[in-house]
Every structure is written in structure tokens, then in C-alpha cells.
């Protein structure tokens, strides 16, 4: 055992270059990297042998192995763990050797720093992480826009202001959005309700594709979007960043900043973060998109406290957004809708620029309060308790007579209060098994102020789960299995103007399970197979919706007899990760039993006060969604690399051929399925700052081709699917190390200025997206030039 001094500061990512040299030596060095005082193993620490320019990173259990070293040769081994000064040790090997390296903390702090552990190892489902450069390039855009470069992820939008993520063809209540360990509880049942998340709060954003119900609960039937903030400061002092950006389309501006402070004395660390955004009407190539302005103000405050075995964090966040709904998309009746659809230019359009947000508009507010406490029993076991309160409020403003729109009153206010308690007992590898068990309790109250499209309800639920993962380095296999049971109960009280007392009690319960295997074929190549069973209860709107959905120009009728939706999702993915080539291919099949969808039987019309509307009924049938997502990035010459991404999806349901013959079924395509999509281009990395490893400067030109959707359900289509289009984009980013006057290089090390350029729709092409619900009314926005600057320090 070798003791050495080194510092362990915080978690992050460290890139290790691995190059294979031709050696004729066969001695291996392996062992664990441990934190000296707690003796806890450290995952993702790097071990590098200088003489042979080879290294590795410890796995989840803190284990590393470097093969093919020579006997009786002196090697300089460098061990480091993120952003800290690494330590070196000279060793000589005579045979295969197991050595445990112990990292002790920087003497100045005199406090044991227990490095944050991931809740569980990365999933065996296909997972994509938004590249750091893509995350920075998307700063100022909404969460969904940030995700759109990931193959298999598309946007379900309502004009330029509202977008929801679609993972492998499914969206809304079928995917979970988890920010800082808190699953967003909002009103995702509406196609025009975007997730209430500020992407500026996240340091890492990733997407888990496939049934993730065991890890993330009933909402994660088809996948999850995970946002992780950076960890609080461990070292005394002040750090943070400030960012500004501007966009030519809509003359928008965004400012955001974050400041971290850890006092010299005490065990507390703080963070304050905020974002302000404002933009006016967007412009399509041929006209202004009337009433598409938006404004947003978000902030969050975090305080963390750490001592010995205890760790506590408390976070409060607010997301507040107000945005206009495209005026041309507002229709009063089906005849308005028909006129709008046939109109060559947007009907009732306000063809000028303004920052004013007029009716129809929405105001959304989301508050989260989170308190989390971790207690470590010993090196292996940890108990986490997390409570969170969420309040979601949607105010929808409609057009109307002067008395109706007076006093800035909303036509309908949807409010949702949620209380969630999570308790998890987790352990680090015991006989190579790592995992945990947990329970969850949730309580919700939904209240709709007038205009009840959905009824008021009280919901409650409980869950128990267990998950374990086996990995024995260097065995190439990893196994994972999880099981979960969820119960959800609802008391649906009243609907409409409280004059229709429903008083219905419904409950749903089901098991979710997942099993996965990972096979490390070689250091570069990994194969993953995951199969999972997940479910979700029908949402109250699917059960009890009754009324005209104005944006969509249809009357929706819920069905109180709906059963839970159950999905059997299997995905097989292969990942190749090498210095010159990285590639990922994943194949999936999602078999959904009792898939809930909106169906319009022919000639079903309801005569409302605003005229006749087609009636859509919530129905369920078995459905299958399957497809392929692929991406690659290859370095071809010097700093030049080629990139490509593709996603294909096919989805159908079983439909009855005729009412008179209920036993005869045929396949019908599912509505709102993403089109086949390709992204391709090249990236030139012309300068790389080796001291930070982050923020490499680059220029990238990409093209996106979206095919025409030809697989459309036979009924309910009101306008032909948009034709194929190709859009071009150009992105550039440059990072400058800022040097203060007379300051030492060490003091300057954290000061970076990143400037970026992001041009979308470079050729100002007029196009419409199949998954844009406003494609009936207007084109998508045209050319948009965005510039940004971000200064980070400390």
C-alpha cells in the first residue's frame, strides 16, 4: 500500500488519452484508488503511466487495471481525481501487482471531502449525453432545443415558443424530466405544455432512451431527460460564471449567471443562479410570426452543508415564463380552422415586429423546494432522504370581448401541487454487487379554476424499488436488474364550473422491471442489451377530458374505463469509443399494450356553440414502436472531423377494420410519429486549451435533413404532411484564458472567456415540421444568428 499526498476537490470529467504502444511486456498493475480518511473507493479517478503514455480511469467501484507493463522498469504513475493537482509515484514492477493508491485531501482544508457518488451506475439502456460544446451552443434556447442533436430525440412543438421532447416517438406523460434528482411534476398532459426547466441550471444533460421506470418512476415509460447541476464548491472562495447572448430572430436577449461561495470557516456552501430572457415576434422567411414574443425569469438558490457522515442540501427554484401563442393559430371554430389551413399566408396574422405579448398567451410558473439529507453508515452504505415540494401553475389567456379580457384575467388557470418523499438505501460494491433499495410516496392536488377542460383531482401514490448491478473488473460482463412496484390512486372530484360533480375514485398499480447486460468487448467497444417493462396509469385528461381543444380545433372526449399503459421495451446498443472514432448504434422495439391515443371515428361531429367540431375519443389498442438511432464522429485529418447522426422510427397500432367486424384488425400507423431525420457535417477543432480540457475552440457546419412523413394514420388528417427539407447551421466557439494584471498563473487558472456564434437555418429556408402542431398555420422561423459570451472564474 502506498500513501501519497494529493488533493481531491470535486467531481467532473477528466479526459484521458489512451494510445496503444507496441510493447513486449506483460506485467499488469491494478488496484483501487481510495480516499485516505474514509477509505472509500473513488470512481472516475485517473491513473496514468507517464513513460508509456498510457492510462485508465477507475470504474464505478474505484478499480483500475493497466496491462502490458515491463518488468524491472521504473514507471512514473500519476494518479488524479478531477480538477486537482495530481500526485506522482515512481514504482517498479516485478510481477502482476495489486496496489491501492490512497488520495488524501489538501492540507489547507483539513476536512475530509467525500466525493459525491452517482446514485447508481450509468444505465444499461441506450444513453446519450449532450456534448459540452452543444450544451454551450444551445445556451439561451429552451430545454428541448438543447436536446435535439441527440439521435432519437425530436421536438413536438407549437410554433417557435413551445417545444416538448419526444424520445423514440413518445412524449408527455411517457417520459420523465429529472432535474437535480427531482422528477418534474407538471402538466405534461397537454401537447402545448413545455417542460418548466431552465437548462442553464444544468452542467450535464443526458437522455436515457427506453423503459426507465424502475429508476425514475411511472413517468419514465419511454425514457428520461436527466439534468445534473455542477456540485457545490468544496474549496473556500468564490467562483461562478456570467453569460450573455443575443439572437437576431425575434431580437432576443438572454443573460444568466451563477455564483458559488464557500466561506473560509464553516461547513456551508452556497449558490445563487438566475436567468433572464426576452424576445419579440419571430420571423419566418416570408413574414413575421405575429404574437410569438416571450419572456422568462428563472432563479435558484442552493445551500449545502457537509460534516463527517452527514450531508444536507436545500434548493429552491423558480421558473416563470410568459409567451405569446401564434395569433394565426388561434381559431374559434372548425370553419376558422379550415380557412386557416387553406390560407396560403397565416390567417389573422399580425405581420410586424413587436415585443408585446398579446392574447392568446400563456404564463407558466413552476416552483420547487427540495431538501435532501445523506447519511453514511460506513464506507459501503448510505441512506438518502429527499423531500420535495412542487407548485405548477399555468395561466392561459384567451381572446375575447373587452370585458372578458379586462383586468388581465386568465380564462383558465391550472394548478398542481405535489409533495414527494424519497428514501433510498444504497451501497457500494459488496462482492461486486452495487445498488440499493428505496421507497417513494407522492401526493398531488390538481385544481382548475373555471373553464374545466380537465377535472379537479387529488392523487396519491407509493412505490418500492430495488436495483442491483454486478461488475467484477476485468470481467467483460456487467449485469443489472431492477424491480419496482408503483401504486397510484386518484379521487376525481368536479369538472367544469364545479357544476358537474364526478366523485370518482380510481386506482392503478403495477410492477416495472428491467434487466440489462453490458459486455465490454474491448476497451473501445461496448455492447449493451436492456429489456424493461414499464407502465403508466392513464392521466386524468385521458379519462375525463371533455371540451374543445382550441389550438387543435377538435373536441376531446375522455374515457373513464381506460386501463394502464404497459410497455415492453428492448434495446440493443453498441458503442465504440476510441480517440479517432466514436460511434453509437442502438436498435429498439417498444411493444405497448393498451397504448392510449386519440382517435376520430369517421363522421363523429359534435355541434358546439362555436359550430361543429370533429370529436376525438381517447381509445386504447396494442401498438409497436421500433427504430434505429445512430451517430458517429470520426477524426479524419488534423483537427478536422466528420459527424453524422440518423434516426428512424416506425410505429403502428392494431385497428378494427370496421365496426361491424370487430374481430378483424389491421395495422394503422400511429399519429405524430417523428420523421426519418439525418444530421451530418464537419467540425474543425483549430485550437485546444490543454490546461482545461474543456471548451475546445471549433467551427462546425451541419446539415439536417428531415424526410416527408408518408406513414400517416388513415383518419383525422387535416393537412398533407410537410415535404422534405434540409437546413444548414454554422457554429463556432473560441475559448480565451483571461490573465489578470500581475496575478500568478495559478490565480488565473480558472478564468475563461468563451465566445460563440450559432447560426441556425443559414439559408433562410421556408419549411414546416411534421411534429409542429402549428404547421397548419405558419412556417417555422427563418435565419437566426446567435452570439454569446460566457466568463467563468474561480
Amino acid at each position: 500500500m502506498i500513501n501519497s499526498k494529493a488533493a481531491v476537490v470535486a467531481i467532473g470529467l477528466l479526459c484521458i488519452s489512451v494510445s496503444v504502444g507496441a510493447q513486449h511486456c506483460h506485467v499488469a498493475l491494478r488496484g483501487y484508488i481510495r480516499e485516505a480518511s474514509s477509505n472509500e473507493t473513488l470512481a472516475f479517478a485517473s491513473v496514468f503511466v507517464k513513460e508509456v503514455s498510457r492510462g485508465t480511469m477507475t470504474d464505478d467501484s474505484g478499480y483500475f487495471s493497466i496491462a502490458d507493463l515491463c518488468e524491472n522498469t521504473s514507471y512514473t504513475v500519476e494518479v488524479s481525481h478531477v480538477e486537482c493537482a495530481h500526485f506522482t509515484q515512481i514504482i517498479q514492477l516485478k510481477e502482476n501487482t495489486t496496489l491501492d493508491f490512497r488520495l488524501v485531501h489538501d492540507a489547507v482544508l483539513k476536512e475530509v471531502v467525500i466525493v459525491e457518488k452517482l446514485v447508481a451506475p450509468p444505465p444499461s439502456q441506450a444513453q446519450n449525453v449532450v456534448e459540452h460544446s452543444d450544451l454551450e451552443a444551445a445556451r439561451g434556447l429552451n430545454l428541448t432545443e438543447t436536446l435535439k442533436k441527440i439521435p432519437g430525440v425530436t421536438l413536438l412543438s407549437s410554433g417557435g415558443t413551445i417545444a416538448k421532447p419526444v424520445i423514440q416517438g413518445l412524449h408527455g406523460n411517457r417520459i420523465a424530466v429529472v432535474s437535480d434528482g427531482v422528477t418534474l411534476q407538471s402538466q405534461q398532459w397537454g401537447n402545448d405544455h413545455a417542460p418548466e426547466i431552465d437548462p442553464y441550471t444544468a452542467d450535464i444533460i443526458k437522455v436515457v432512451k427506453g423503459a426507465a421506470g424502475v429508476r425514475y418512476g411511472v413517468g419514465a415509460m419511454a425514457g428520461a431527460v436527466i439534468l445534473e447541476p455542477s456540485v457545490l464548491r468544496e474549496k473556500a472562495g468564490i467562483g461562478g460564471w456570467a453569460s450573455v447572448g443575443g439572437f437576431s430572430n425575434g431580437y432576443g436577449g438572454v443573460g444568466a449567471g451563477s455564483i458559488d461561495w464557500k466561506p473560509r470557516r464553516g461547513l456551508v456552501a452556497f449558490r445563487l443562479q438566475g436567468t433572464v430572457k426576452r424576445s419579440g415576434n419571430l420571423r419566418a422567411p416570408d413574414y413575421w410570426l405575429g404574437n410569438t414574443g416571450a419572456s422568462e425569469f428563472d432563479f435558484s438558490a442552493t445551500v449545502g452543508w457537509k460534516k463527517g457522515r452527514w450531508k444536507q442540501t436545500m434548493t429552491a427554484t423558480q421558473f416563470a415564463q410568459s409567451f405569446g401563442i401564434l395569433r394565426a393559430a388561434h381559431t374559434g371554430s372548425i370553419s376558422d380552422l379550415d380557412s386557416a389551413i387553406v390560407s396560403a399566408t397565416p390567417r389573422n396574422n399580425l405581420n410586424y415586429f413587436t415585443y408585446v405579448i398579446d392574447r392568446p398567451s400563456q404564463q407558466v410558473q413552476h416552483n420547487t423546494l427540495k431538501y435532501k439529507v445523506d447519511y453514511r453508515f460506513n464506507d459501503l452504505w448510505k441512506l438518502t432522504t429527499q423531500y420535495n415540494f412542487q407548485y405548477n401553475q399555468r395561466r392561459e389567456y384567451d381572446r375575447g370581448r373587452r370585458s372578458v379580457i379586462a383586468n388581465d384575467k386568465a380564462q383558465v388557470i391550472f394548478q398542481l401541487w405535489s409533495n414527494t418523499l424519497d428514501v433510498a438505501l444504497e451501497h457500494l460494491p459488496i462482492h461486486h454487487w452495487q445498488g440499493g433499495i428505496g421507497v417513494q410516496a407522492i401526493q398531488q392536488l390538481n385544481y382548475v379554476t373555471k373553464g374545466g377542460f380537465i377535472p379537479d383531482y387529488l392523487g396519491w401514490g407509493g412505490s418500492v424499488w430495488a436495483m442491483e448491478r454486478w461488475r467484477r473488473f476485468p470481467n467483460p460482463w456487467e449485469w443489472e436488474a431492477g424491480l419496482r412496484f408503483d401504486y397510484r390512486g386518484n379521487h376525481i372530484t368536479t369538472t367544469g364550473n364545479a357544476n358537474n360533480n364526478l366523485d370518482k375514485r380510481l386506482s392503478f398499480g403495477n410492477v416495472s422491471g428491467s434487466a440489462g447486460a453490458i459486455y465490454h468487448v474491448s476497451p473501445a467497444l461496448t455492447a449493451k442489451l436492456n429489456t424493461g417493462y414499464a407502465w403508466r396509469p392513464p392521466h386524468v385528461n385521458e379519462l375525463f377530458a371533455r371540451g374543445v381543444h382550441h389550438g387543435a380545433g377538435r373536441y376531446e372526449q375522455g374515457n373513464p374505463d381506460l386501463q394502464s399503459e404497459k410497455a415492453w421495451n428492448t434495446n440493443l446498443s453498441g458503442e465504440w469509443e476510441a480517440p479517432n472514432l466514436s460511434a453509437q448504434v442502438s436498435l429498439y422495439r417498444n411493444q405497448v399494450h393498451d397504448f392510449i391515443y386519440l382517435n376520430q371515428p369517421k363522421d363523429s361531429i359534435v355541434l358546439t356553440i362555436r359550430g361543429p367540431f370533429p370529436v376525438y375519443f381517447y381509445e386504447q389498442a396494442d401498438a409497436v414502436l421500433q427504430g434505429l438511432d445512430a451517430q458517429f464522429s470520426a477524426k479524419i485529418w488534423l483537427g478536422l472531423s466528420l459527424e453524422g447522426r440518423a434516426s428512424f422510427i416506425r410505429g403502428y397500432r392494431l385497428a378494427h377494420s370496421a365496426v361491424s367486424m370487430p374481430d378483424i384488425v389491421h395495422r394503422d400507423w400511429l399519429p405524430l410519429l417523428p420523421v426519418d431525420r439525418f444530421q451530418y457535417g464537419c467540425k474543425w477543432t483549430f485550437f485546444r486549451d490543454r490546461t482545461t480540457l474543456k471548451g475546445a475552440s471549433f467551427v462546425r457546419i451541419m446539415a439536417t435533413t428531415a424526410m416527408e412523413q408518408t406513414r400517416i394514420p388513415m383518419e383525422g388528417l387535416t393537412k398533407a404532411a410537410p415535404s422534405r427539407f434540409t437546413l444548414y447551421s454554422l457554429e463556432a466557439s473560441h475559448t480565451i484564458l483571461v490573465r489578470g494584471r500581475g496575478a500568478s498563473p495559478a490565480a488565473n487558472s480558472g478564468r475563461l472567456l468563451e465566445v460563440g456564434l450559432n447560426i441556425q437555418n443559414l439559408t433562410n429556408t421556408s419549411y414546416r415540421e411534421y411534429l409542429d402542431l402549428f404547421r397548419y398555420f405558419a412556417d417555422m422561423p427563418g435565419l437566426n444568428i446567435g452570439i454569446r459570451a460566457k466568463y467563468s472564474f474561480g
Partner: protein
Amino acid sequence: MNNSKNRFSTIFLLVAAASAVFLTGCKKDKATENEIITMVVVHLTGIGTAFDTEFAAVDADGDGIFNTIAPIEIPTNSVFNCHLHVVDGPLTDITEEIEVENTAHLFVIKTSGGGLSVSDLNTDDNGAPFGLESTWTTSDAATGSVQITLYHEPTDKTAADPGGEVDFDVVFPVKVQ
């Protein structure tokens, strides 16, 4: 040690207080208004006759669908003054309000079948069609229907598609007898 604990609890309380402020600091307005037209009344008074009857389309339960639409039964070969009334919510006559905002509203009255013709729609303050009042003329006995549509904020009152949004669109059966 004790100091740091105290400081922590002070900070904790401050954060809790601050969050309590922002969590409750949102706007409170429970009195939202919704535009739900619940009744459309066609008031016909005979010119030179004693005929004076109201025919109503009523949404009794406020679900956005007219439960009853009274058939308009009127004598042959007569002339009537038609005055429309619109009722919103439980019992708010909004006819006057529509009349004040006459340039932002348009009633379109279309007949089909025989026996009835509609003319002389009144005009708004700009001289464009408005239609709250009109003249109805019957001929020989026949059955048909009359469709009355109220447009809000029409962009062009004389166009086939006036633009704006439809506030209501109702078809009354007509029996000229």
C-alpha cells in the same frame, strides 16, 4: 462547532423564509372570466302585425353545446324586425357590450331552404356590416333553416371568410306556415 451550527441554522431559516416568500408571491386572482355563450335569442317582431316572439338556443349545463334550439315557426308572407340577443355565463346579457364593440363584431345570417330571406343588416360605426338587427321576409309556406354566426375581431367584414374567430355558430330550423 456550536457557532457554525448556529450560523447554519440561521442561514437555513433565512433560506426557508425567502422561499416561503417566493412560493406565495405569485399572483392570486381566483375570479377568472370565461367567455361561454350560453344562449342566443332571435327576437322577431312583425311589421304591421302583432307577432312578437323570441326563439332561443340554450346551453343549460354550460358544457359548450346547445341543449335546445327552438324551431323558428313564423307566418307566411310577412315582414319582421329581427333583433338578436346574446347571453354569456349563467345570466349576463352581453348584447349591449357587443353593440358598443360593433366594429369588432359581425353577425352573419344565412338562410337555406325556401320561405325566408334576410336583408337590411344594420351597420357598425364605420358603415361596415354588423347584423345585430335585420329584416326577415317570409314568402309561401316552406321549411328550411337559418344559420347565425358571430365573428369576433373579423379582419374583413365583407369577405367570404371575414377572419377573426367564431364566437358562436348556430343553425335554427325554420318553418314558415
